[in-house]
């Protein structure tokens, strides 16, 4: 039983990252009403960016975070505005296919340039721990947890209180009304996609010190992120946050009781259960 609490705490630290990735996905879903299939690929790309920032420039992932945040925001903005929107002619089913196509292109370019070698970085604080009294938490995991929650809070404030956030929520539900108050809907779409992409960049920087990167690394996360978004209720902000944390804990506990390699079984079992019992997700309130 002495393993239970550390396991839950461990799960919460992973869950915070899941939540951050899911927040980006749910924001994009809530506004554009599409599932962004490229989300995992963008996470992978951000992990490589953080990896090369460390190995080539000697920049610590935490120091690289603000830079990557802005860079990936710009990348996401540009992708939506000048690739996805342009290639899909504004039709939802096309957007879906375009994001899927983007994912394939990004994944295979990564495979081509960087091969499927698993890469990790060495950081001096990798084995430092924080003593919580009841459990020892590796320092990078504690930073990831706090960092993810702080970013989630910032995102929540942005969406809740700024004019941009109000415009994002307005566009999510009433495009024509938004146009009539002078909101440029295409710009808001791109801002949402950019912010959603910035979320994965932040997640990548928080993740890399305790994780690895390969061209396929995005899949595991995006699958969990999809689950989180459905679990929390499509487009629900709080749902993504709580759902992410919950899935992290479920995974850790299943790992504890069923064995490390079976940890994710719990996630998908929970997913199926929610779909059967409460298909609208755990939270009614949505972004839209």
């Amino acid at each position, binding site marked *: 039983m002495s393993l239970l609490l550390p396991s839950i705490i461990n799960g919460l630290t992973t869950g915070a990252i899941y939540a951050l990735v899911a927040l980006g996905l749910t924001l994009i879903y809530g506004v554009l009403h599409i599932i962004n299939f490229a989300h995992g690929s963008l996470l992978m790309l951000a992990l490589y960016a953080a990896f090369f920032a460390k190995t080539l420039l000697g920049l610590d992932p935490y120091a690289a975070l603000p830079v990557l945040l802005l860079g990936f925001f710009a990348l996401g903005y540009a992708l939506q505005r000048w690739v996805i929107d342009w290639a899909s002619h504004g039709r939802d089913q096309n957007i879906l296919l375009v994001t899927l196509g983007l994912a394939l292109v990004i994944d295979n370019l990564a495979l081509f340039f960087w091969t499927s070698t698993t890469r990790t970085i060495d950081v001096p604080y990798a084995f430092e721990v924080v003593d919580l009294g009841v459990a020892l938490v590796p320092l990078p995991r504690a930073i990831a947890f706090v960092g993810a929650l702080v970013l989630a809070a910032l995102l929540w404030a942005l969406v809740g209180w700024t004019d941009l956030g109000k415009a994002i*929520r307005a566009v999510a539900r009433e495009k024509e*009304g938004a146009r009539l108050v002078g909101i440029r809907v295409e710009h808001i779409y791109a801002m949402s996609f950019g912010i959603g992409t910035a979320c994965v960049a932040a997640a990548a920087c928080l993740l890399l010190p305790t994780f690895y990167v390969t061209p396929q690394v995005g899949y595991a996360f995006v699958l969990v992120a999809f689950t989180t978004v459905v679990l929390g209720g499509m487009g629900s902000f709080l749902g993504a946050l709580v759902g992410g944390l919950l899935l992290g804990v479920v995974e850790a506990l299943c790992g504890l009781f069923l064995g490390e390699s079976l940890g994710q079984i719990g996630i998908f079992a929970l997913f199926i259960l929610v779909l059967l019992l409460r298909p609208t997700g755990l939270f009614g309130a949505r972004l839209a």
Partner: protein
Amino acid sequence: MLDVVVVEAGYGAMPVLRGVTLKVGIGEIVAVLGANGAGKTTLNRTISGLVRASAGRILFAGDDITRAAPDQIVAAGIAHVPEGRRIFPNLTVRENLDLGSYRRGRARRAANLERALTVFPRLAERLGQSAGTLSGGEQQMLAIARGLMSEPILLILDEPSLGLSPRLVEEMFELIARIREAGVAVLLVEQNVVQSLEIADRAYVLERGAVSLEGKAATLAADPKLKKSYLGM
């Protein structure tokens, strides 16, 4: 101030406006009447940039806004309160009003909010309420208040009395008169012919996408052709 010059517009290949010419002067109330499907809403949407004019020109305060985007038209001082209100149901009343000054009038948001709430005291009691839960009449008030938040020079109202009880309709027309007294010109699309002509300075009758009758509101009110034209017979 607003000059619509032989404008044609439509949806896809289907023409709706077939050469509409109309003017709104500074501080004027101009009524646009017409049967269902005559193209009144399309005219409003073309002025505010939601629908592209395929021919003709639209001038506002000396600028050509024919090809301008909706946000530029809002910035120029035209607020369009659309048919069906188009408020943001998932936002609070307060947030809806804030977004009214998203593009224009942001610097004086607090003062304009104050003013809008004195005009619509019902909204003041409901600032924190989600707009989708307002009654139909309250939603209409919110839509107009949101339009006023951008300090418009010209306010376009598309059937503001639709779905309101007779008493609220009365209130609505008084309100439109008050808006004009504050110096805002109003382009008013209405089914309430008699009341519209009472408060309007001038009026146009639209018939199958073209102006069939125009003139001083008082003159039109007495015109036997109006009824014929309006009913499209």
